[in-house]
């Protein structure tokens, strides 16, 4: 796919829109009529051409505008990037993974030339050209993790593995669903999952951690997570709650299909080679209910999932105020047809 990069906004006038191609490749997360937490981790292997799983890092039509929105957020709050000193090895590991993947997967947009530790990097869509020495941070305009993190859609957290658990010891986080990097930095696996309802009782966390501690080099994994966001806003951080929290009270029966977006996170985890750290990628896709309903199968499925969602999950995801409007609006599409297993749009 060669996307035509759009000029659009994720704040203010919210001019963000999805093209029909983008709607069709949306990673719709519900394969069944009921939703429950599970260790839904699968190998992050190459998916179908054009799908969001085609490459290690997905670049789509929103790439340039999303990177611009990230710069605004970082300028307003530099604390959205943080890295503890012992993560420098992991920073370079991640830069290498991202640059080699992008240059290999999107040769029209990115190029990387390596001659020993002398690296030349070109990012055509963002107009970036740099020559630097791999391993020498003084040769880049900023720390390597922030440098490459600003050139990727999505948020990234570097996890250090020690004491039989994972610590979130570095991150560049500007498009998060109501969690704070400043609050979570340095926390362990169990600490940052503390607020999630039900998962402890289900044993999901222990099993997922056990799996990730053994995550193998060259065998990345992925899972989907989801919530809902009012307006196509990337930065729904607790720090900026005053800018978006109140929007939830503005939803009504007339505007629900335009205002409410299904927010899907494609979460990926890669083992990093020299540091033995893990990079956790959270790539966010926003799709209005109206766009989702262009595929009746999705509208029916989404209706059934929302209708049967446990109250504590609705509360945890911050959807309580407007959730009835969502169910009402989606109900018009649901004729009760048997849908069968799978997330496909048709």
């Amino acid at each position, binding site marked *: 796919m060669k996307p035509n990069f759009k000029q659009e906004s994720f704040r203010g006038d919210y001019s963000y829109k999805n093209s029909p191609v983008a709607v069709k490749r949306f990673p719709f997360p519900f394969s069944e009529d009921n939703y429950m937490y599970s260790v839904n981790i699968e190998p992050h292997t190459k998916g179908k051409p054009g799908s969001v799983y085609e490459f290690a890092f997905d670049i789509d039509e929103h790439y340039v505008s999303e990177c611009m929105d990230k710069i605004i957020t970082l300028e307003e709050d530099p604390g959205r990037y943080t890295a503890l000193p012992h993560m420098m090895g992991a920073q370079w590991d991640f830069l290498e993974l991202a640059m080699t993947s992008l240059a290999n997967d999107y040769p029209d947009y990115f190029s990387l030339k390596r001659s020993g530790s002398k690296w030349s990097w070109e990012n055509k869509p963002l107009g970036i050209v740099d020559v630097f020495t791999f391993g020498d941070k003084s040769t880049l305009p900023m720390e390597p993790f922030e440098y490459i993190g600003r050139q990727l859609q999505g948020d990234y957290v570097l996890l250090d593995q020690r004491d039989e658990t994972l610590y979130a010891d570095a991150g560049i986080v500007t498009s998060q669903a109501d969690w704070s990097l400043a609050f979570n930095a340095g926390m362990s696996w169990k600490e940052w999952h503390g607020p999630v309802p039900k998962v402890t009782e289900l044993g999901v966390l222990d099993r997922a951690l056990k799996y990730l501690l053994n995550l193998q080099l060259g065998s990345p994994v992925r899972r989907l997570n989801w919530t809902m966001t009012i307006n196509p806003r990337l930065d729904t951080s607790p720090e900026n709650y005053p800018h978006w929290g109140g929007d939830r009270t503005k939803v009504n029966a007339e505007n629900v299909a335009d205002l409410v977006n299904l927010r899907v996170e494609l979460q990926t985890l890669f083992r990093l*080679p020299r540091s*033995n750290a893990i990079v956790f990628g959270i790539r966010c896709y926003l799709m209005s209910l109206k766009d989702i309903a262009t595929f009746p199968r999705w509208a029916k499925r989404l209706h059934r999932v929302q209708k049967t969602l446990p109250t504590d999950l609705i509360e945890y995801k911050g959807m309580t105020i407007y959730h009835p409007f969502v169910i009402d609006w989606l109900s018009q599409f649901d004729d009760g047809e048997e849908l069968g297993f799978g997330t496909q749009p048709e």
Partner: protein
Amino acid sequence: MSTLNVKVAAIEQVTPLIKHFTFVNEDGSLLPAFSGGSHVVVAMEAEGRTYRNAYSLMGSPAETEAYHISVRKQENSRGGSVFMHENVTVGMSMKITQPVNLFALSKLGHKHILIAGGIGITPFMSQIEDLKMMGARFELHYAFRAYQHAAFVNELTEKCGDSLHCYADSQGDRLDLNELLSSQPLGTHVYVCGPAPMVVAVLETARTLGWPESSIHNEEFTSPPVGLPFKVQLAKSGIEVNVPGEMSMLEAIEAAGLQPEYLCRGGVCGRCELNVLENDGGIEHNDHFLSESEKASCRKIMPCVSRTKGKHLVLDL
């Protein structure tokens, strides 16, 4: 399980019992970078069976033109190390897994005490490269039978200088663990790899002296022990597999054509864990992964190293 196709580029007899193997990528490209303490599992296609043994990568993680492993010939083993010594030749193609690290350095350690016994020196060979790159404080304590059996002493002296301390049993040298571990600054981490009695001694000494559990690290791969032959029934696959005495259950299941998950094959990582559906109580747990209560319940088993003396074993596979 993602694997690498490699070619044996060199074999060197380092001591009477240890051979050093050099692998390069079959297609000539660089091998993946790795971290100090990592191992690979080497697949050995012997007549009628496949051995898969884990070996620590010894080279510098910064140099990925080649991987280096050392293999000590174990006379009373199932045959993997003997195969490496007698059947592997220069130029041969082999399959190895991508590196996995179950014995990583703690990046927050203020000082690192590395204790090696015999062939247990191998994971430290790559770790000292990382420690030197990090500019970290460390000491390497290397105990062995006699200098003729001590691989890499010269290389280590060159790399570690005063940080290397050697103990030759034949000369009556003794490593006083109590003295070593009672005089370390706060924030020191200790790492041990060697024969089981040495590992136990280090763990017990450190714990007795009040070292925090998170500052004590050991690499304790178990070679699958030889035992009595037995039969195992695999419920999902609907087959019965004969496990000969000198073969592990995992190997026998693979030989029967199944491809169960695995990673370390030494009872450490937990990846090959299987649920026990039925058994008559004879399970011998040889792994370091399951908790004591899990072992006692006999509802889980690690087929890479564990066996049964019972007559009846049904697994959920």
